[in-house]
């Protein structure tokens, strides 16, 4: 009798516990409303924190600037490169005349045909031949250069005189990890940090070569737009189509750290397809 009573009490308690665990529609609705309110509050707080942090971050973005405004260039104005020093039909300065003479003597780089058909780019969507890269830029209205033409410009004595200027339009991190020796740095996204020195050099120059990583990277196009906006004539501005990927990939020396740091390195393509690294001071 006693045992039966205890069992009945246990069963009643179990039933009570099960009833308590059942979701109550009213409390569930309240809980859903509470979670949704919490979610909305967090979203607002998160966005506010984001805006404040972005304003305080030295690398923060400007919310008022369209970073991807492409320069307005006339499609007819782009023309094939005709060798260092011979690009300005109207140029009459001593520098250009000297350059003409020099390149005539060396027979330099007038051809625009595709010499290099090597594929570049690490992204599968960016596998392009050099011809395709040059053509793409010319279709956009820019003056594009092949790798061998940039090598000619790089080797020219007029580069040392400041008549030819090479500009790296990649990020500071990329620039510091390796750039064409003597190249200036122009960061389109943080223009105020770099544009001063670059403009000074560009005003003196006859020919300005801008590069980024090559392929479909837009930073060189955007940098050309920045220079055009600041009064540098279009006919002096060229884009190196293959960019730094092609420069380093061809085993050319590059400089690490600051401009003119003197720390030169180069990737030596090994037979197994891997690159080893050399260094020179």
């Amino acid at each position, binding site marked *: 009798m006693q045992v039966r009573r205890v069992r009945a009490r246990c069963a009643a308690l179990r039933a009570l516990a099960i009833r308590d665990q059942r979701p109550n529609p009213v409390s569930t609705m309240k809980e859903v409303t509470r*979670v949704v309110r919490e*979610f909305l509050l*967090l979203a607002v707080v998160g966005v506010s*924190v*984001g805006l404040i*942090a972005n304003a305080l971050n030295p690398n923060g*973005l400007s*919310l008022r*600037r369209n970073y991807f405004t492409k320069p307005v260039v006339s499609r007819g104005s782009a023309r094939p490169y005709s060798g260092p020093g011979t690009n300005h039909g109207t140029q009459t300065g001593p520098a250009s005349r000297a350059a003409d003479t020099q390149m005539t003597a060396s027979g330099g780089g007038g051809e625009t045909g595709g010499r290099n058909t090597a594929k570049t780019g690490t992204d599968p969507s960016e596998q392009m031949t050099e011809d395709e890269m040059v053509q793409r830029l010319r279709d956009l209205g820019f003056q594009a250069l092949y790798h061998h033409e940039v090598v000619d410009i790089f080797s020219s004595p007029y580069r040392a005189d400041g008549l030819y200027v090479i500009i790296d339009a990649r*990020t500071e991190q990329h620039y510091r990890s390796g750039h064409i020796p003597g190249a200036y740095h122009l960061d389109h996204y943080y223009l105020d940090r770099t544009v001063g020195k670059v403009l000074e050099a560009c005003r003196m120059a006859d020919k300005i070569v801008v590069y980024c990583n090559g392929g479909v990277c837009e930073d060189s196009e955007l940098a050309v737009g920045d220079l055009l906006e600041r009064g540098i004539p279009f006919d002096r501005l060229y884009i190196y189509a293959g960019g730094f990927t092609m420069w380093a990939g061809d085993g050319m020396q590059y400089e690490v750290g600051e401009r003119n740091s003197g720390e030169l390195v180069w990737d030596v393509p090994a037979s197994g397809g891997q690159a080893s690294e050399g260094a020179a001071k």
Partner: protein
Amino acid sequence: MNSEPGLIRRLYRSGALMVFCRLAIGLLFVYMGFKKAMDPVTFLKLVREYEMFPDNIWWLLNFTVATLPWVEILCGLLLLLGIAHRGTALLVMVMLSVFTPMIWLRGLGIHDAEHIPFCRIIFDCGCGAGPVNFCWKMAENIALFLAAALILFSRIHRFYLRVEFVR
């Protein structure tokens, strides 16, 4: 009859599973968020590749890129500390349910264009970890979504600083 609960159930009841989910999402979101917040230009370029916004509303792209990493960091910190975990889990689920289809579409685009098998596609999705394997990324996002759902729907509240943010 053996009435001992299974390992997963014991972990769930003890709150250890929830703590693991919170730690996994929290640490990942804080790390990824910081990486994006410290290099907003790279993030801007990568987000632009998704073509989420038309060119004429560029300000929305800037706004998204400027704020999103910090929302992620906030979510990560709140989950680690156990504050407002349900609202945070819902926010994480909403973000993942926007990002994951976008990454899927991007992978599909690369697959169609380059004829590369899905699990051999490696690209930078802008998630903060650099180039990643497409299949791994999808699996990671689904796992994170399920973990966030577990946090949202669980009735086990242990090892939390404060359960509710809004009353």
